[in-house]
């Protein structure tokens, strides 16, 4: 790959970012979406979040984990407990990461 090819590839990727994020914002006249779809779209962000989180928690290398001795599970429990105690996302991250690091570095999980 030459530098020019690399720049072309990256410019194309940037254009793809713009075109996908702006897809329904590009036309001047609104593209008609059926009402049921508009209503259903309110579940989309929640679903996208869960779809990223769930495999990160219960899978390794594309397989479901087979042991409870995985530092991610107690980390998620601690993060969940913190969230429903205080509702803060920053604390949720810190609580979970702290448990993860203690188990991984301290206990070698």
């Amino acid at each position, binding site marked *: 790959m030459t530098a020019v090819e690399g720049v072309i590839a990256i410019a194309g990727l940037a254009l793809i970012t713009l075109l996908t994020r702006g897809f329904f914002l590009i036309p001047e006249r609104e593209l008609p979406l059926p009402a049921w779809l508009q*209503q259903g779209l309110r579940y989309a962000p929640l679903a996208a979040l869960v779809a990223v989180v*769930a495999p990160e928690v219960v899978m390794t290398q594309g397989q479901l984990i087979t042991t409870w001795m995985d530092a991610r599970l107690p980390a998620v429990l601690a993060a969940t407990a913190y969230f429903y105690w205080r509702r803060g996302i920053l604390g*949720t991250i810190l609580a979970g*990461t702290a448990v993860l690091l203690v188990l991984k570095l301290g206990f070698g999980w």
Partner: protein
Amino acid sequence: MRTWQHPEFARGAREMTGTALGIAAWGLVTGVAMAKSGLPLPLAVLMSLVVFAGSAQLAALPLLAGGAPLWVIWATALCVNLRFVIFSAGWRRYFGDLPRGQRLRMAYFAADLNYVLFMKRFPRQRPAPEAVPYFWGGVALNWTSWQVPSLIGLLVGERIPPEWGLGFAGTLALLGLTFSLLHDRSTWIAAGVAGAAAVAAYALPLKLNILVAIAAAVAIGLLIDHTTTQPALPEEDLT
């Protein structure tokens, strides 16, 4: 009044601060991965700054470094970014009346978490004067808390040991955000269906399991909405 002086700009940025640490951890991990991919540093810096889509970058990197044809690289990024097409239909409700140039400028910067937090702030799907400054406030903080750690990760590269599990901090940020969206039976069920679908369809290439999960959750959500009495949308939060 300029956009960044509007109180809603500050609010948009403030409501993003909770997740900013997770975004930063993720940006750092992405930067490290880019540094290790074999892509020359100037190209990697350019990629981080102009592409501004973490999952698409991570998917395109090995292809780019391995000399794959351009169309394969672009098709891959397109598939990974398809969820944004769905989100753009949501943005249209609020920003459809703005000039096209402004719409596209906003769209380019509109990342996943901006969408999630914006929809929490403005659950009624109609334009509002506070929407634009709120949007830019969240976007400004999100862009910074992604790009700065990403560039640091590119520069320090190998010196961050993977066993710290830093990437998991990003997952935990998304987890917290997910909990904040679960407020009734239908959202809990939709989330359960989305999670199961995402794991079951994980073997699909190009992260298409995310689209499968969105489709499944929207379908089950609609089913619940149409078979039970309609729950009122949460009141617009005016505090």
